[in-house]
């Protein structure tokens, strides 16, 4: 593929990728406009946009919209960064040491499928109803997902590259840092994408833990007051945050794991 062909292909990709959600939006507007769905359940996009503008101008339940967004982003990012870092570290360790794996196996795999709703009472008891609980709930799910991915990634390390590193004098930590980690990166990057999506979905559950700000709160509150257009606006915001972070992670992944599939 020549350079100009590549440029044209990229352009076509961006075009189709933009048109596809727009087509869905148009279909939705049509359905709403033709009155095919009750507006309290599927309001027209325009009504959602109006609600969004209202929130942007006047806030939601007395709190500016950007405060809600910022509160959620702060929770998610702290939990995500910490959870990913620890999860990757533990996952890689589990991949390398049968003992560590054996110790962590049952606790983490028993915990992973447990619905956040089932953990909320315990979290309230142990960590209160403040930020700690909310952040920890997201942290935990990110941690557990990243652990699975990092550990699985370790298996991709080729025997020869591990051996090569050892026989060039790499100590355990260096083998880890220079061979195991890079080999696991493809799976780690995938894990980061999946975990980000999950972190955002858990956000709502975490904001069930009490509190009056955050996108999760906004969605829960609007839905309990039946303000459907606000629910949709909140959901759309989460979706857009997810899309943006995912594209960022995918882009970073391609950069970071530049060698993948190149031979």
């Amino acid at each position: 593929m020549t350079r100009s062909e590549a440029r044209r292909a990229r352009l076509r990709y961006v075009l189709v990728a933009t048109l596809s959600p727009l087509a869905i939006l148009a279909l939705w507007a049509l359905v709403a406009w033709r009155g095919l769905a009750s507006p309290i359940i599927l309001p027209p996009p325009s009504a959602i946009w109006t609600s969004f503008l209202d929130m942007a101008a006047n806030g939601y339940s007395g709190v500016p919209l950007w405060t809600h967004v910022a509160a959620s982003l702060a929770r998610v990012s702290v939990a995500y960064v910490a959870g990913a870092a620890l999860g990757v570290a533990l996952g890689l360790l589990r991949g390398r040491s049968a003992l560590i794996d054996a110790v962590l196996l049952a606790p983490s795999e028993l915990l992973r499928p447990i619905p956040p709703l089932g953990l909320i009472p315990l979290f309230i008891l142990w960590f209160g109803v403040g930020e700690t609980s909310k952040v920890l709930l997201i942290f935990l799910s990110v941690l557990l997902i990243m652990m699975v991915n990092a550990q699985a990634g370790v298996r991709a390390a080729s025997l020869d590259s591990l051996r090569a590193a050892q026989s060039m004098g790499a100590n355990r930590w260096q083998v880890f840092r220079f061979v195991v980690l890079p080999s696991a990166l493809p799976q780690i990057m995938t894990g980061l994408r999946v975990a980000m999506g999950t972190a955002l979905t858990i956000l709502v559950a975490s904001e069930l833990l009490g509190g009056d700000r955050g996108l999760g709160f906004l969605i829960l509150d609007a839905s309990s007051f039946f303000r459907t257009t606000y629910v949709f606006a909140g959901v759309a915001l989460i979706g857009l945050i997810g899309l943006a972070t995912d594209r960022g992670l995918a882009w970073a992944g391609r950069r970071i794991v530049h060698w993948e599939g190149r031979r």
Partner: protein
Amino acid sequence: MTAAARPSKPAVVGEAAPPSPKAGAERAPPVLKFEQVGFSYDGRAIMRDVSFSVGPGEILALLGPSGCGKTTILNMVAGFLRPTEGVAVVDGREIVGPGPDRGVVFQAAALFDWMTVAENIAFSLRCAGAGKARRREVAEEMAALVGLSGFEDAFPYQLSGGMRQRVGLARVLAAGPKVMLMDEPFSALDVQTRETLQEEVLRIRDRTGCTILFVTHSIDEAAFLGDRIFLLNDLQSGAYDVYDVALPAPRPNPENRLHPSFLRLRETIYRRMRH
């Protein structure tokens, strides 16, 4: 069948071999020693009763049919595999794992795909804590040595097969281990590059006194490089021969390629290998 009972030995076997041309090597205790080593993969025995020893500064060339167990022997010396029978000893201690005293040039290069050529070459220095500038310096020097100047910042997937192989060699030369284990390191190289590097290996051995195990399929190469040639006919039944190579020093001299004893040895081994 034990090594002693084996028939048709055209040359002397194992430790009983006459002095290698590397002066002073024969008196010193062996750097490397296999004692009745056997090995099985998942219960399938692929070699038995292999004994040999290599002195300091010696180059032992390993020749043998594809799949006979050459790489497996190297893997045991490197400490990647443990003999399932007998013992493998390096420097008087049983080999229990890999170590920086034994460097390996892998048959399939085994480069770190995520590092540039320079980073690959300087890997051992990085592990030893060398600074950035020093690493770059050594990387450039070694890249030049194997004919890869200008490719320091390329990634392995941007190289040809032979170029990858040379990075694998440069990486070990940069580490300068006491024992080098080279698994067909020149198989993907053209004649000119190959001969240059063969001479380079000899020069390095002469300079550093390192011990080298060298796997090759080229009889010429074995004879030109090896102080002794280890011809592995059938390791499964423990059958192998050891040939002494008598070439005048200094070894790196290209003239040696036309030396009569070189040509004679080549012929003997060729016959033996084709039966």
